[in-house]
């Protein structure tokens, strides 16, 4: 089998049946922003802006390295941005400007 054949047959999400480590029964209560990210995903789905299959494919399109390095909801946030750009709903510059504003807001109003 050629070296790329398995890569093609097994896109990053397609891991059913591959060898893997023992299961560690991990869990954590969601951070507030993670829960908001989940709620955003649901609302985007309600409005048919991004459905869950588009989201899943979007995660896959991040590629193995990013999938491995980002946490679950970090992937979602990144994918929402990319899909919204792709659909022409948001422009990258708009998001960059808004992110600078949000960041600035936190710096201007340090938590008491």
């Amino acid at each position: 089998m050629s070296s790329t054949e398995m890569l093609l047959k097994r896109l990053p999400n397609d891991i059913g049946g591959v060898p893997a480590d023992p299961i560690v029964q991990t869990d954590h209560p969601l951070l507030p922003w993670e829960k908001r990210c989940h709620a955003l995903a649901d609302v985007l789905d309600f409005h048919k802006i991004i459905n869950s299959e588009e989201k899943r494919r979007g995660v896959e399109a991040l590629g193995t390295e990013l999938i491995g390095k980002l946490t679950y909801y970090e992937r979602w946030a990144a994918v929402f941005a990319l899909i919204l750009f792709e659909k022409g709903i948001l422009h990258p510059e708009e998001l960059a400007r808004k992110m600078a504003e949000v960041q600035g807001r936190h710096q201007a109003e340090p938590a008491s």
Partner: protein
Amino acid sequence: MEEHDHSHDHDHDHSPIESPGDVPPSYYEVMETSLRELLIEKQLIAPGEIRRQLEVLDSRTPALGAKVVARAWVDPEFRSRLLEDGRSACEDFGITFYDDTKLIVLENTDKVHNLIVCTLCSCYPRPVLGLPPDWYKAKPYRARAVKEPRAVLKEFGTQIPEDVEIRVSDSTSMVRYLVLPRRPEGTKDFTEEQLAGLVTRDAMIGVITIEPVN
């Protein structure tokens, strides 16, 4: 009824839904906040919708699924409707579905033990169980459940007799599964509420069975 269409019958203050903390927000948290605000500014989503959905998410826990299971144990008519069409039986039971998913309820018997997984991502019967635990979304469970379910079950401390078939169901974005565990022995005189108290999330995923009551 779709949850997100409901009209607000209580006052919401419109203060930010971020919780102020001492830790500066991460890059991705800033991204989440920014996306949400831009979508609201563009009137693609309404400001109250995220808050409402946060409430919906908070309202979904395995306790709901446990009530469904207990009802199925005591009410054979409900049980057959549940096995026939999981979603409509749950909806009749008062559990709204906030997504477009179909629910298939898989009954454990003395011949078949069911286990659910989502090998591709993290599909899960969220309207009845809430959000999945981290291990359900992580590689080891997703990769191995379909290949060596008995070894996986053993890691959860579960041993299924060799003559019982283990059936693994792989969820999709449209089709979700819920395991109807076997009613444990020693519960003949239990009320429906007491029965519901025995049913856990992991039993409804199928990684454990419910212990007999002495």
